[in-house]
């Protein structure tokens, strides 16, 4: 981990590449010329102050919001302007900062929705077995036939994660997956992500304010500030960087 991790590279194992991406909301530049690469198989952490544009970055990378300008490629294919359902079928999945759920379905039906609609061409196979596998991997097997209306926050997050995994993604974006969880729950989720990363051929981008957990998980951390990349490097370097301490870490204790 002593080699400097470059922001962009011409390497063949780049999975997603952003080039000078801008997203405006009226006069506000929520993303202001963002350029970086997501490498195949890595765990990339994203952190930054509230309102820095982290969720907007995820929205732009997953097709929820079109970029105002700039280029985004995934697997060598330009995806700017593609709707989220199409991005999903290409292999881009995500979870939401505010947990989303299909409240009229059972746990299993929630997850199966991802398998039924999200798997792109040629990814078929045995859907039911695949759904069972994903439910098992995320630890929802005992609750799978329950209705989701009484599910607690942790269960909701598991369901959202399982549904995203059921789409057979290559790249998974997680928006503050640990927020609202207590210390034990954070540990179990961190372990779960590590398990998933080892078991599946999957690249992770994790937005998180819990910097300790993020440093444990990530190979690189990207700090976003006012819509721009402040730095992107190994956790050690990022967490000891003067500018990062100044704009982000200084204001909070390293929880």
């Amino acid at each position: 981990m002593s080699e400097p991790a470059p922001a962009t590279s011409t390497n063949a194992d780049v999975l997603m590449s952003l080039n000078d991406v801008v997203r405006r909301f009226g006069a506000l530049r929520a993303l202001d010329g963002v350029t970086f690469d997501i490498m195949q198989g890595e765990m990339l952490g994203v952190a930054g102050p509230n309102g820095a544009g982290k969720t907007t970055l995820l929205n732009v990378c997953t097709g929820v919001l079109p970029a105002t300008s700039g280029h985004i490629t995934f697997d060598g294919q330009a995806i700017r302007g593609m709707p989220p359902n199409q991005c999903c079928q290409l292999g881009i999945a995500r979870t939401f900062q505010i947990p989303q759920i299909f409240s009229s379905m059972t746990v299993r039906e929630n997850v199966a929705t991802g398998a039924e609609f999200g798997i792109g061409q040629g990814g078929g196979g045995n859907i039911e077995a695949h759904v069972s596998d994903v439910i098992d991997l995320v630890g929802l097997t005992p609750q799978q036939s329950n209705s989701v209306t009484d599910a607690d926050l942790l269960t909701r997050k598991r369901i959202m994660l399982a549904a995203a995994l059921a789409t057979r993604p290559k790249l998974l974006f997680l928006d503050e997956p640990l927020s609202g969880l207590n210390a034990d729950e954070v540990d179990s989720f961190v372990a779960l992500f590590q398990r998933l990363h080892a078991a599946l051929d999957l690249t992770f981008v994790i937005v998180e304010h819990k910097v300790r957990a993020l440093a444990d998980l990530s190979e690189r951390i990207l700090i976003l500030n006012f819509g721009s990349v402040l730095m992107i490097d190994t956790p050690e370097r990022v967490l000891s960087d003067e500018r990062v301490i100044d704009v982000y870490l200084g204001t909070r204790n390293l929880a």
Partner: protein
Amino acid sequence: MKDQTAATANQMTRRQPSAFSSLTFWAIVGGLAVLGMFVDDPYMQHVLILCFLWAIVAAGWDLVLGYAGIYNYAQLVFFAAGAYGSGMLAAKLGVSPIVAIPLGGIFAGFMGLLIALPCLRLRGEYIALFTFAVHLAMPPLILKTKHWGTGGNTGLLGIPPIDLFGFTIGPRDKLAWFYLTLAVASVAIYIIYFIVLRRRMGKAFVALRDSEDFARSLGVSDFRYKLLAFMSSALITGLAGALYAHYTTVVTPKILGNEFFLLAMVMLAIGGIGRFPGAVLGAFIVTIANELLRSAGNMRLLLLGLAVVLTVLLLPSGIVSLRENFQRLWRKTRAKQ
């Protein structure tokens, strides 16, 4: 408002499959078919025919409003499109009603597409505003296009009866109409609730209704499935309109008036949306109540309004939730003993 509707709609869809099997459904249809042999009063036959036609409209509306969660208030526009489309083809161009009726449905489906396209760019309440504006714009449009043969205010007259292999089913042949509308209604309702809503399409509707963002992130195309919801609902409702036109032989802009609109709303409110058989039950109850109240004259709409207020206050998820409420009560009293 959105969350509430979704939440109520939810509890229903979940219990729906076990609560109502297709066997029960066809048994009831068979029962109605047998009933037809014993009802020989033309007025009662007429009321039942109206019940069947309204059941199609209510089911079509339930599909888009209750299950797909799209606030479409232009449902009667599709009914009118089917009625005018088929009526004009038959009365003005001499097309056989057997051909004109399905074409009326297809025309309504096309209207569904036209109305759906702008709705794809709108959210929630704005869809309600837009579609209701379309509904309001229809009667003046029918008057303005009088020279195309819509009949303007007097209505489209002389719509020919159905001619089936030499048999003419005129407005007086109530028994034939009874079985025809029963057949179309049961097939339409079966297709909506037992085929469309239980397959991939229905799952997409409910997913988009429950959480559009989540559904899209999982690969559900909101574009495709919202169009499909609008178009299939419009097509089925248009068929009911076309049948209605050939049954009554007259179509006037009154079918877009306040009374019809209110009746349809009351059906869904009383029956309960998004949980079969709520809307269909509501269509029967409201059509029959509306006839029973004919003698009440102007008080009728007031009484119907009162019925809605009471159901919304006492049974927010419609009559169809009565059974569950009873079950809950039953369990509670038993638990106390």
